[in-house]
């Protein structure tokens, strides 16, 4: 095998020592492992647990909205303060402890080495540290609910002076715990991001050129770059907010020369790119799945890549569309309206290219394919409703209504939930060596997707009718007291959706032990991870693979098979 092009990480001495085939104890194998696959699992299972917590919170506050004041089974009566802290932490958890670990950390860690033909990340110990810090941050967030005063309730955006001053938020410990947890989570992902970028750039299999990298890896890398470039200002902001809370400084306190709006700029300068940080990995997962199950080459790989880069860059110039009515100079709104509408162009183009990939395909609607296609269908609604909010004039009305809420759930649900289900149903055979049950998968799919639309379409209508967010009982507002039917529909649909998740959990555990053995390449896919054993051993391959072509050479004319794995030498090559 040609060793000439391999990079030095392949034969680093430390690496050989770790690969000794001695029995590892449970602790060092599963808890303190430096294996990228185990770390991916750690992120994934932590993410699933956090998703269940976040889902439980949404159950509690949606029940309060549908049946105000009544005791919620399994929770109790939701007080005003608890309501605020439930919605606050639902949002925080779903973005920082579900979307990010599941999409970037879990799939990034699992897929990057396997798809580029490397045996591990270049910094395995940094990788382990990243997860450990992440776990600590999750624990701190959960603990924040049990400190005196309860969990923070000032919205996931945590605007000062409310968040900065315990006199106002009445959660003296909860607010600080929340902030520390979020800041630590950022640290964890900074460490992870460094690792992702370095690994992709340095450890690719011999022969893998830039345009031979599977799209999902590009997307994860662009997301990591965006995250690293945008999070700095927010970490600075978090330090200032922490000082305001704990030491009593006045960075955001107007009475002491501070400015509360400054926080909003720092927060959204990070917060908007963050949307694309989680969107792009999900788009990447969808690209892999669509190509595999349409047996098609990705429609114009380079253009998709460029639109992703364009989206990433433009996402740094749109943040103040979250602040049109927040007291910024009104002339600034015009600039941000323009940049926001500009960003719709590459995103729309990317979706068109995905749809075009279906053209001429041979489409099999397997469970992962259903999830991937539903991502496109649902995200489209999230995308187009964003235009109403990016246009400053109409945002005056829609700002902070349920229309906004429904809009970003139509983006974040496809990203975090659909993207995760698409990815896990697709790579489950590789991760655990067994197939998931397809019938249960489809029941779970339809139950989840239909219920999802029944949750959020009513909320669009409520938002258009002027209903504001984060209000624990709409009976307090005469103009909103009606329309209760729509709230009950949304809550009922949520209950249905949550129940259907039990099917997924059952299918997951059942298939883990009883699923049909998967073999190396059950989907007949091209990318390198499918050439390793399922599940891949520590070190991934006995001999690292070479790469001879791009990742999407499906249905190439003149070949018997309709796929052409990346590691298979060209037909013209002399036989070994």
């Amino acid at each position, binding site marked *: 095998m040609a060793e000439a092009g391999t990079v030095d990480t392949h034969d680093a001495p430390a690496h050989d020592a770790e690969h000794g085939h001695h029995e590892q104890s449970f602790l060092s194998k599963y808890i303190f492992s430096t294996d990228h696959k185990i770390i991916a699992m750690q992120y994934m299972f932590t993410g699933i647990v956090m998703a269940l917590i976040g889902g439980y919170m949404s159950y509690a506050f949606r029940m309060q909205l549908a049946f105000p004041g009544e005791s919620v089974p399994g929770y109790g009566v939701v007080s*005003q303060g608890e*309501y*605020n802290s439930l919605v606050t932490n639902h949002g925080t958890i779903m973005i920082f402890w579900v979307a990010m670990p599941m999409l970037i950390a879990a799939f990034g860690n699992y897929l990057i080495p396997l798809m580029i033909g490397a045996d591990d990340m270049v910094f395995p110990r940094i990788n382990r540290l990243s997860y450990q810090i992440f776990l600590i941050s999750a624990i701190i967030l959960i603990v924040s609910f049990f400190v005196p005063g309860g969990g923070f309730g000032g919205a996931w955006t945590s*605007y*000062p*002076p*409310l968040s900065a*001053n315990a006199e*106002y*938020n009445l959660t003296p410990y909860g607010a600080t715990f929340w902030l520390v947890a979020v800041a630590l989570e950022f640290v964890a992902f900074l460490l992870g991001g460094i690792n992702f970028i370095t690994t992709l750039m340095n450890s690719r299999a011999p022969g893998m050129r830039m345009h031979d990298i599977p799209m999902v890896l590009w997307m994860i890398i662009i997301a990591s770059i965006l995250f690293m470039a945008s999070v700095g200002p927010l970490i600075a902001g978090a330090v200032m907010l922490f000082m305001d809370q704990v030491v009593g400084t006045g960075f955001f306190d*107007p009475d002491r020369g501070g400015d509360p*709006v400054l926080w909003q700029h720092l927060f959204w300068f990070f917060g908007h790119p963050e949307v694309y940080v989680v969107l792009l990995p999900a788009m990447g997962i969808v690209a892999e799945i669509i190509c595999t199950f349409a*047996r*098609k*080459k990705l*429609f*114009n*790989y*380079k*253009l998709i890549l460029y639109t992703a880069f364009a989206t990433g860059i433009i996402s740094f110039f749109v943040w103040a569309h979250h602040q049109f*009515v*927040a007291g910024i100079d009104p002339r600034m*709104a*015009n600039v941000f*309206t323009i940049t926001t*509408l*500009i960003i719709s*162009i590459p995103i*729309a*183009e990317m979706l*068109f*290219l995905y*749809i075009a*990939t*279906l053209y*001429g*395909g*041979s*489409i099999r609607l397997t469970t992962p394919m259903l999830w991937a*296609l539903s991502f496109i*269908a649902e995200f489209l*609604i999230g995308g*187009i*409703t964003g*235009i109403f909010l990016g*246009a*400053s*004039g*109409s945002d*005056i*009305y829609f700002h*902070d*209504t349920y229309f906004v809420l429904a809009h970003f759930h139509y983006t974040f649900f496809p990203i975090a939930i659909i993207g995760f289900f698409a990815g896990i149903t697709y790579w489950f055979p590789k991760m655990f060596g067994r197939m998931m049950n397809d019938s249960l998968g489809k029941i779970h799919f339809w139950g989840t997707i239909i219920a999802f639309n029944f949750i959020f379409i009513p909320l669009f209508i409520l938002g258009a009718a002027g209903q*504001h967010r*984060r*209000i*624990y009982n709409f009976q307090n507002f005469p*103009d909103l007291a009606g329309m209760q039917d729509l709230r009950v529909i949304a809550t009922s649909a949520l209950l249905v959706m949550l129940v259907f998740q039990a099917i997924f959990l059952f299918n997951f555990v059942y298939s883990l032990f009883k699923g049909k053995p998967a073999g190396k390449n059950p989907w007949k896919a091209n990318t390198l991870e499918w050439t390793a054993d399922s599940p891949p051993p520590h070190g991934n391959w006995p001999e690292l693979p070479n790469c001879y072509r791009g990742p999407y050479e499906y*249905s*190439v004319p003149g070949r018997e098979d309709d796929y052409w794995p990346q590691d298979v030498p060209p037909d013209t090559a002399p036989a070994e």
Partner: protein
Amino acid sequence: MTQGIYDFIKSIFAPLGEYLIGSAVPVGSSFAGDIDALIALVAVFVGFWALLAYAAFFFLIFRFRARDGQRAQYVTGEEKDLKRWITYPHAAIILCDLVIVFMAIMVWYNIKQRLPEADSTVRIVAQQWAWNFVHPGPDNELDTDDDINTFNELHVQEGTTYHYELISKDVLHDFSVPVFRLKQDAIPGRVMKGWFRPTKAGAYDIQCAEMCGIGHGIMGARIIVETPEEHAAWMSQGSAGKLASR
């Protein structure tokens, strides 16, 4: 010129705006119709693209479903005759965006950027978790003895252009009147200025639209839009300081 173009485009979409938003939430201010029309315009534009995308999407899934003995085609997406299926819509979307930007900025300029001459001024003081309103009283000037202070109830006169001075005593709040289509954050340490002209008599909700702490969910008030006669009557009995029922 630009105003003419704006008015023309607005007149096309105004009926749909009236139907989409106006039918659920009364059109209560001079600029509410502009926002409704803008929403309708965006709805038509994005609705068109969404329908087109869905049509193509479901058609392709159906047309190219897996069939025995039929292989997928090998298409790179870089062929010119195929790529134009992407580039033409791309160009058309840019055109749509231009129209949306133009209309959005015109609406925004009218509501938020310019400040027309006022007939009267009211002061709105937000605090955790209530609204205090200062009306200028019969002399139509704030900070005089005949000012009328109310709590959670704002009285304004139909057809009158008001300036507002929005103040917060503690944290961020947001003065939101859905029937006016008006929303503005209140920031401690600043006086936010803006305007509105009520056009439809009645009593409507004021909501706080910015998370402001535990009582955010009860921080509502009512805006009472009165005819000139009603308003004069209220003003004459009002100087004593009328407390709202709430």
